[in-house]
């Protein structure tokens, strides 16, 4: 219960100085239907918040862990070691790498790691991005800011981890005496594509998870299936035409293969990459559309 507080009841000034007309932003609040256009001006105004949200997640993630930031390096490294042992050794996939990679003396662990780079960004981005709105419901119900930044910032955090993984990758390459081809300069472009694909899907899933919490449980299975359908641990070489079509329908197929072309000098699969780019564009548009359509409900049901 608030306690009595004494305040000197000073007289209020009769007229506050009026700021010049036209300099004050004005807006209207009203019920809206359907799709709400993205306010790019507003996104730009709040850009620092996106930075602070990513910064917070990066800072907080490894607090109270013994190894701290080393986990960012260890996670992909350990995954690579296990995959090399299981898929490369036991399952014998190492022999099924394309001939030009074998000719360039690319070890299987580098092959796996090059696939893990986009895959980890994608899967971590979707898993954390998909539940991000649900986890941040306290923010959603207490303060206004562009809601797109909630899933976007978690994906930004995953991108920071990916950058660290890249550092590790180039060290591994040096150890294996494999020089990256000149096409390595396209890595940022491919990373951008991966990020956009992740965002498109995370936008839809994060909104769905707020309404239907079922998606929290569906997500891990979805990502597991997706992993097996992607050429992360093995080259997906299939013969039949319909199998080809199925494999290529996965936007990650073209992306992962492109990463290997970029980093390890595998031949470019232009057709697959073009399909991926098209699909990513569609995913992103659908994601943004669905998110902006459902956004206004978040605070009501979060």
């Amino acid at each position, binding site marked *: 219960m608030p306690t009595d507080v004494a305040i000197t009841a000073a007289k209020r000034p009769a*007229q506050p100085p009026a700021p010049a007309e036209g300099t004050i932003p004005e807006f209207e609040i009203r019920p809206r239907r359907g799709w709400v256009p993205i306010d790019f001006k507003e996104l730009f105004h709040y850009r620092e918040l996106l930075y602070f949200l990513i910064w917070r997640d990066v800072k907080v993630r490894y607090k109270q862990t013994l190894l701290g930031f080393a986990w960012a390096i260890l996670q992909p490294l350990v995954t690579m070691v296990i995959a090399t042992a299981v898929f490369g050794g036991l399952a014998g996939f190492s022999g099924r790498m394309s001939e030009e990679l074998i000719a360039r003396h690319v070890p299987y662990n580098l092959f796996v790691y090059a696939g893990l780079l986009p895959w980890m960004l994608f899967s971590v981005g979707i898993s954390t991005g998909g539940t991000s709105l649900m986890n941040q419901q306290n923010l959603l119900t207490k303060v206004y*800011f562009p809601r797109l930044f909630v899933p976007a910032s978690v994906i930004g955090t995953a991108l920071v981890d990916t950058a660290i993984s890249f550092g590790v990758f180039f060290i591994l390459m040096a150890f294996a005496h494999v020089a990256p081809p000149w096409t390595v300069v396209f890595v940022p472009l491919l990373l951008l594509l991966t990020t956009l694909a992740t965002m498109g899907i995370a936008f839809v899933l994060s909104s769905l998870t707020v309404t239907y919490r079922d998606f929290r449980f569906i997500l891990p299975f979805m990502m597991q299936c997706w992993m097996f359908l992607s050429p992360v641990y093995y080259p997906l070489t299939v013969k039949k035409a319909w199998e080809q079509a199925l494999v290529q329908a996965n936007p990650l197929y073209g992306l992962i293969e492109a990463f290997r072309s970029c980093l390890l000098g595998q031949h470019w699969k232009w057709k697959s990459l073009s399909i991926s780019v098209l699909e990513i564009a569609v995913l992103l548009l659908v994601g943004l559309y669905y998110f902006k359509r459902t956004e206004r409900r978040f605070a009501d049901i979060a």
Partner: protein
Amino acid sequence: MPAAITIDGIGKCYQLVLRAQRYHMLRDVLMAAITAPFRRIAGLHGYGPAEGKFWALRDVSFEVQRGEVIGIIGRNGAGKSTLLKILSRIVEPTEGRARMKGRVASLLEVGTGFHPELTGRENIYLNGAILGMHKEEIDRKFDEIVAFAETEKFLDTPVKHYSSGMYVRLAFAVAAHLEPEILIVDEVLAVGDTEFQKKCLGRIQQVAQGDGRTVLLVSHNMGAVRQLCDRAAYLRDGKLVSVGPAAEVVAEYLNSALETAQDNLLSRPRFVTLAPAIAGFSCRPAGGAAHVASGAAVTFQLDLHVTEPIRNAAVSIMFNSDQGYRVLGLSSRCETGLLTLAPGQQTILCHVDALPLAAGRYIVDLEIFSAERVADYIEHATAIDVVFGDFFGNAQTLLPLEGPILARSRWDFQCGPV
């Protein structure tokens, strides 16, 4: 003067989750199981049956002038917070529109977005960004914020190690240094110690007066509303009852408690409660007198309807002045210790030999406390009028200015004879 906020017929409707129907036949059960997901989807999307609708706010219209401080008052559940959330653009109204002129910052909770693992310094930046400040702006005001919060020594300590007082001070300090044209504040004055509350109120006053900003605030502290606000808007059950000069609207709000004093208290809205149990309250002046008088004996009667046993319970009757300040509390805890209230109809009598309240109107809050939690709480259950009575036995009494509580005292004058 131009209006900073124009609210025009704002309404907000929520869909209530309907209670599941009863099943009679296996066929119904199976059918219900099959259609359940579809009905749920329909419900979540707002296509459910119309009777599940609840208007948290309806047909609210008023204007706020630039540079004005307006208080939003009303009982819990009257729609005050919903209105603030709509104006803060957190939720969208179902109908009506509002026009805002100027940048809006809202403070619906102290410390939104604070992360316990981050240090005080880091949280100032994070919280500032969440409230819409730019980094450069925070840099500029950093020292001011830290000085206001009085937490210099702990700047580099994670806030999870802060005392709750320090946490609140830091959080309010960040918000207090926002520079919007329109500031929306929800009951943040109820936290922190008195000294800090005074500082917060002073800051709000300074923001409103010094810079001609518009402030919209929700408070249960009627004293603060009267002192800070030019005007007040009184909401009841989602509807606007009146808007006008703060003192008048506050008086109207407090008096409205009387009108409903005769109802069954079980039907009163409650917001912090485990099990509504308080069904009635009355006061009986001793000896069949018509009025409750200062210094006279009085018996307060509480009728309870207990559904499940309430263990380690204490019952409190609390009196607020007509300005909304809590002035006196009577608690069974202090006299009988904690008791168990058995299920069923119960009558509790509280006898006071000499009522130590000066003449005036008091608003009564009732509470049942159980194992350190609030089991039932009714705010503004009723109002009682205390008439002049001979508390001191010499026909003297305190002036209204001197306070509402009467107490005997002995005086020794050590001055010599004249």
